[in-house]
């Protein structure tokens, strides 16, 4: 056990493992079939969205039930400039503009909403976040000339003028030299997703992560330590909105389509479920959440049992909350703890057997009764 821990915690080993993962990710699309590439890209799109949700829910403990709003807005911000400008003089610049706007617009909206609402606690914030898609969807439908309404916008076959002076139809995300569409899209999605995961990793490891954790566990203590809960909650909410928006951009790279449906409230619920199943308080959890989100549907389709998908999702989430409150990401930790407990063999005194069952998704905050005895 010790030896294993030592190896795992060794810096160089970690770096090496990371490099191996990178190399595999880089080479895989060249080897794998298109469906595998598309599936991995799809997972990455939602891993980024879920990561945003984890930052606001898992790291600062604010309930957000409106994340699909930011994903949907990000998707519009990405696709509309490309639709309008890609075939024109701006050319690929439209994609860059789309990328920037997909982070910027949801970020600004998120910031404005956060400034007025994060003071609210619990249900109140959840309600405000429910209001976002509830308001956003009819607005998107109302302005269907601009947003494409429920028919949506597709940019897979946009007109452009080729070298021969003729108008062709082309996919803005298929311009790769010698690569198939699925490979090219894979590289864009994975590169951006990795960048945003790295950003999140350094964010939560650094002073911001510590501040988030303090705010989450006890706001009064945070204030007394000079950490403004308000500021950090606004920050987390805004970052989450940006991540949602970027996921919207990646959705466009992956599928080249969006419609007002993307904003719908129940997709927020899907994201929350995926976040909890993966592990809301963890970065790896976001990836696992993305895997859950994408592959459960796929597997159920594959088995021709998709009418049971909703039921399966419901059962999975209840089971996870019961048995693995930290989500799938906490599975290794839980196993290690069980192994260690078994090895130690000391009888567990009655009284805290209940603790492990109390369903706490977070780092265990000491119950209040432990403080003053």
């Amino acid at each position, binding site marked *: 056990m010790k030896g294993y821990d030592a190896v795992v915690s060794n810096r160089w080993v970690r770096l090496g493992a990371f490099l191996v993962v990178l190399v595999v990710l880089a080479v895989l699309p060249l080897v794998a079939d298109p469906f595998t590439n598309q599936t991995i890209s799809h997972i990455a799109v939602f891993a980024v969205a879920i990561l945003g949700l984890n930052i606001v829910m898992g790291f600062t403990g*604010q*309930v957000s039930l409106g994340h699909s709003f930011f994903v949907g807005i990000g998707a519009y911000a990405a696709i509309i400039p490309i639709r309008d400008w890609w075939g024109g003089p701006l050319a690929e610049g439209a994609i860059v503009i789309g990328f920037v706007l997909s982070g910027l617009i949801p970020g600004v909206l998120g910031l404005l909403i956060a400034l007025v609402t994060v003071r*609210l606690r619990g249900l109140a914030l959840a309600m*405000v976040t*429910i*209001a976002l898609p509830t308001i956003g969807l*009819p607005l998107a439908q109302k302005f269907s000339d601009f947003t494409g309404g429920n028919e949506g916008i597709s940019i897979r076959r946009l007109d452009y003028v080729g070298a021969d002076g003729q108008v062709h139809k082309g996919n803005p995300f298929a311009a790769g030299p010698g690569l198939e569409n699925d490979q090219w899209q894979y590289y864009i999605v994975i590169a951006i997703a990795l960048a945003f995961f790295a950003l999140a990793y350094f964010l939560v490891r650094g002073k911001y992560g510590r501040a988030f954790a303090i705010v989450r566990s006890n706001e009064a203590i945070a204030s007394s330590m000079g950490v403004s809960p308000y500021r950090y909650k606004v920050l987390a909410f805004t970052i989450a909105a940006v991540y949602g928006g970027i996921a919207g951009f990646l959705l466009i790279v992956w599928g080249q389509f969006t419609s007002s449906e993307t904003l719908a409230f129940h997709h927020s619920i899907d994201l929350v479920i995926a976040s909890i199943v993966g592990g809301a308080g963890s970065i790896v959890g976001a990836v696992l959440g993305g895997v859950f989100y994408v592959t459960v549907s796929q597997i159920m389709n594959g088995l021709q049992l998709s009418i049971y998908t909703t039921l399966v999702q419901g059962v999975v989430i209840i089971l996870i909350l019961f048995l693995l409150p930290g989500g799938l990401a906490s599975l290794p930790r839980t196993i290690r703890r069980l192994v260690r407990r078994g090895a130690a063999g000391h009888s567990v005194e009655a009284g805290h057997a209940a603790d492990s069952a109390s*369903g*706490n*998704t977070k780092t265990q905050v000491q119950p209040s009764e432990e403080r003053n005895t």
Partner: protein
Amino acid sequence: MNPFGTFIQLLVDGLAQGSIYGALALAIVLVNQATGLVNFAQGGMAVLGSYIGLTIGNLLIPGVGSTLGVVLGIVAAVIASLALGGVVERFVMRRFERAEEDTKVVATIGLLTLITGLVGLIWGFNPTPYPFFFGGSESLRIGDVSISVWSIVTFTTIVALMVVLQILFRGTKFGLGMRAVADNAPSAALAGIRVGGLRMAGWGLAAALGTVAAILLASKSQLTPNNFDGILVYALAAVVIGGLDSPIGAVVAALGITILESLAAAYIPWIGHDLKVVVPFVLVFVVLIIRPQGLFGRRAVVRV
């Protein structure tokens, strides 16, 4: 119909539809009072309860005639919901008693997903007429305004339930115990209050209440597994606007937003029916910012 008649008709219709939102809002308040959390599965449980009533009613009607069959179906649905609510509290939500707010919210969302999946599989997705004493078309006319029997019955039932709940909360030992549990469960236990039992009772009552609302709605517009998806969102808005701890507030807010929404749609052209759904949710924003405990709430801080 003259313009004034239209106005009155919109008010009357708003009261009836708002009653359905209000009933679900009441159920949410009840659960919040019993266990201090917000149950997103409330609508799903209501639909499940009414399907049970439908099944039992339809089974019985050939034997005992339609009147008795409908009554027994409703009674069975209410009893089943009471049990369902209690069981869910005892065996699912009890586990999350000490968990944090977001975990509790997610647990109820998981329940909602589970129940929705189950109902669709068992009863299918075909809209099914609910056997009842009357449908949505019988009505009385008062001048220009028509008031459907359904509206009158729904409104009266919900207002009566609200009054009963208000009395229960403010005037009975049971209500006192429930409020003590919601306020500070460990402390209530030290006073000899059976916390677990009261919580189960609260969930059971809330589920039964939701089922009554679902049956009333189904009698008008048939039963489908997704009947309450949209209604839940309105009920939550009503609860936030009215206050989480106020049965009267929840119902008044539900009626208020429904009427406000219809009137805004009819008389403010740039809102219209396309954007009327925006009205209650903008109101949620405004109320939360000005008065976070809700218009009728007593708490200094809104808590889940």
